[in-house]
């Protein structure tokens, strides 16, 4: 194991030594320069990379001037290459070249100050062609400041409305497209808002993002969709305004970044990490050109059921249940589908509501697109028939069709139902009249029950003084709670007392057992006079008797010879000996102590101890 470790250590040292040797060999500095592309067009940047190998302290050219090219230093990166254990360390200095005009440009050799002397890059050729617009020079240049790129080339906003004319109330889809040049690090801060008067717009859902090439330049396109609805006729000027983005524009000047560990992209003129410290951050606000929409008023003579719906719709109806009694509710479902201003689509109305009682409908809308321009709106209406019916009358819905430029009235189908119970309806004229006009006194209804009439009077009654207070707020409820509460308290107290008594009995038994053990130890000693010895023996028998009959509550002091004999299952001979022990003890206690320090004979003591041990 140790051999293996030593072998690995030796191998590692050898490897490092070899690498160091190679490193020393690779120390001779050199410089190269490349363009990411030698062909480009006006406004399309390419990157110049100057790679210095073998010198950590080389100083790249700070300013490269070529007429027709805008060349800016963008940063440096470090490159480590290894081949066959030969490692080379290179520094790559990057420049962005923005062609300002078409033509062939020669980038002259550049001088790099290295520790070993001056190194020169090779000359490079860049062919710049006009861009797709045919421009041989950039169309716009920023007026000054630090902005090097044209903002119109970096960002743009456009408002797309597919129609030029619309009607009041007609919902017209609109798209706001915000474009930001992909190769510029950027972040959209705020989307555009629609600016103008005389219209309402739907809330814009989450925008869609895509990348498009416009005039050969890649753009990130953020598209907001909405629908606008004109509320007055006339010309409507709408524009998308106040979009804001933060973009990073390359800095003029070739000062090197402070940290030598900054890493920049090799293929892009800018790092993929936006705002990583290269160039200048700038907030750009941009807006679209105004778009004009001609709004026409709705023609006069709208049908009575027209409530402002403009678009193209269809109507489907249904009813449930198909059979019912008079007064039973029927639910009529009307679904209006199509494309238009659904916020102005209201519930269809019955062609004739005679004999029907209608309730306010409920509605739900299920959009088919993001902006709610098309979808289905479902109305549920509850109707109750007042008389026998065979069908629910057709539902009527009117809207204005902007394509036909005319009002359209949709009429649903008659919905067949069977409403029964008509025979009993006339039986309640008194009730019906009671709701309309007070009848004359002579026509007052009697209290006799009729079909479809209220039930009889109650002459029996329960107890008076009832009240509406909930039971849990009445005293009787809480008074009733005292019964189980007191029961619980009593149970708790009784249980606690029982425990305490159990504890006291246990303590007394423990004291008896302790005294028993103490006396047994004393009796085994031979130094007590006979009266004390037999008194202690008697006390021991009494204690054992009390312990043996603990369930009967016998106190040791009350135990006599017969009680002790009865407490233990003893043969007759031992019974007599117990009696003899009690008699002898009494005799010695009451006859007085004999003179001299006499002790109990060994034989007698043994017999007494044997007798006491047998009491178990």
């Amino acid at each position, binding site marked *: 194991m140790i051999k293996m470790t030593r072998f690995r250590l030796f191998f590692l040292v050898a490897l490092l030594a070899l690498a160091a040797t190679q490193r020393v060999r690779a120390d001779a500095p050199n410089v190269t320069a490349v363009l990411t592309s030698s062909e480009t067009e006006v406004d399309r940047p390419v990157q110049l990379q100057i790679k210095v190998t073998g010198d950590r302290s080389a100083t790249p050219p700070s300013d490269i001037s070529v007429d027709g090219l805008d060349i800016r230093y963008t940063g440096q990166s470090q490159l480590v290459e290894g081949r066959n254990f030969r490692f080379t360390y290179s520094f790559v200095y990057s420049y962005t070249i923005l062609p300002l005009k078409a033509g062939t440009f020669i980038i002259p050799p550049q001088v790099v100050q290295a520790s070993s002397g001056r190194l020169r890059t090779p000359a490079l050729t860049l062919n710049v062609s006009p861009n797709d617009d045919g421009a041989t020079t950039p169309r716009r240049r920023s007026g000054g400041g630090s902005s090097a790129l044209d903002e119109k080339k970096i960002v743009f906003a456009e408002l797309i409305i597919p129609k030029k004319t619309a009607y009041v109330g007609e919902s017209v889809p609109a798209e706001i497209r915000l474009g930001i040049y992909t190769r510029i690090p950027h972040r959209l801060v705020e989307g555009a808002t629609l600016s103008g008067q005389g219209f309402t717009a739907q809330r814009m859902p989450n925008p869609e993002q895509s990348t498009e090439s416009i005039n050969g330049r890649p753009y990130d396109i953020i598209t907001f969709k909405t629908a606008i609805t004109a509320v007055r006729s006339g010309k409507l000027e709408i524009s998308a305004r106040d979009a804001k983005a933060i973009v990073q524009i390359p800095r003029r000047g070739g000062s090197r970044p402070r940290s030598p560990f900054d890493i920049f992209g090799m293929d892009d003129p800018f790092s993929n990490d936006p705002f990583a410290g290269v160039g200048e951050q700038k907030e750009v606000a941009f807006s679209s050109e105004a778009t004009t929409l001609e709004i026409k008023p709705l023609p006069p003579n709208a049908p009575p059921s027209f409530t402002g719906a403009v678009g193209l719709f269809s109507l489907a109806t249904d009813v449930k249940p198909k059979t019912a009694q008079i007064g039973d509710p029927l639910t009529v479902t009307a679904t209006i589908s199509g494309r238009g201003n659904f916020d102005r689509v209201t519930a269809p109305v019955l062609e004739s509501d005679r004999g029907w009682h209608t309730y306010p409908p409920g509605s739900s809308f299920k959009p088919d697109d993001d902006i709610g321009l098309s979808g289905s709106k479902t109305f549920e209406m509850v109707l109750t028939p007042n008389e026998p019916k065979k069908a629910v009358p057709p539902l009527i819905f009117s809207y204005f069709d902007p394509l036909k430029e005319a009002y359209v009235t949709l009429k649903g189908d008659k919905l067949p139902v069977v409403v029964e119970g008509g025979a009993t309806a006339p039986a309640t004229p008194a009730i019906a009249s*009671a709701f309309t006009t007070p009848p004359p006194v002579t026509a*007052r209804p009697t*209290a006799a029950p009729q079909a479809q009439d209220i039930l009889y009077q109650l*002459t029996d009654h329960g107890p008076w003084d009832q009240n*509406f207070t*909930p039971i*849990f707020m009445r005293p009787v*409820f809480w008074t009733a709670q005292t019964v189980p509460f007191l029961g*619980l308290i009593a*149970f708790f107290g009784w249980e606690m007392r029982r425990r305490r008594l159990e504890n006291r009995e246990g303590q007394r038994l423990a004291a008896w057992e302790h005294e028993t053990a103490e006396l047994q130890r004393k009796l085994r000693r031979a130094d007590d006079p006979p009266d004390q010895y037999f008194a202690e023996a008697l006390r021991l028998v009494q204690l054992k008797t009390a312990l043996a009959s603990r369930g009967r509550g016998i106190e040791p002091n009350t135990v006599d010879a017969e009680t002790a004999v009865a407490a233990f299952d003893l043969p007759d001979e031992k019974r007599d000996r117990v009696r003899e022990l009690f008699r002898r003890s009494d005799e010695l206690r009451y006859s007085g102590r004999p003179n001299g320090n006499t002790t109990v004979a060994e034989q007698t003591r043994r017999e007494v101890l044997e007798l006491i041990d047998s009491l178990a």
Partner: protein
Amino acid sequence: MRAPLLLLLTAAALCLIPKAFGAPVAHAEVDATFAKANADYAAGHFPTAIAGYESLVKSRQWNPSLFYDLGNAYFRDGDPGRAILNYERALALDPAQPEARANLQLVRDQARALELSGNWAEQHLAYLTRDQYAWLAAAAFWGAAAIFCGLYFSRRRPVVWIFALLLLGTISAGAACAVYELEAGSAGNDLAIVTGRNIQARLATAESAGTVLLLPAGSEIKILSTRGNWLYAALPNDLRGWIPAQSAEPVRL
């Protein structure tokens, strides 16, 4: 120890004396008024009957039959809103009274009165009344408390008793929640009935404010707050609006 107990018993006895001796005299008068109002109703003198019943209501001599009969009298007198109100009151005192339930349904249909829709909990708690849930909660609570005490003092704790403790605790908590739901729900303490005819619920406390819903007489509302002479109420169809205070009366007195 015995003296306070004696005082308590004496006080209880004194409280019971009026019930034992004074009550029959008062109830005889109440019975007579009730019988006369019933006779007026049977004779078709509905306003007189209503006055008789209302006098009993004002003297707080309430029972379900009184409100039921008063509802019938209002119905005959052409006031479906107050008829429904009194049927609701009869049912509030005795939720099981079948006559009041039947007449309420009939009058409500006739008057096209709108009802508040109970929430999910209310619809599934219809097995017992609010008071029954209260008793159930109390009984289950004390059962759980007794088992808890038994388990506390017991040396052995059988699983079956622990399960019983959890079951009764759950029943008690569930019943208490049911009481709360029913009390705070659409048929709870704040239930009121529209007694005016075709009352417009409005968006604000002004007659000129926009309308929310047309409330036929007898429609149920739940009073949420009061401002001056206006009530802000939860309305049928999950709407809310203001209605004049004098156009609705609470079910519970």
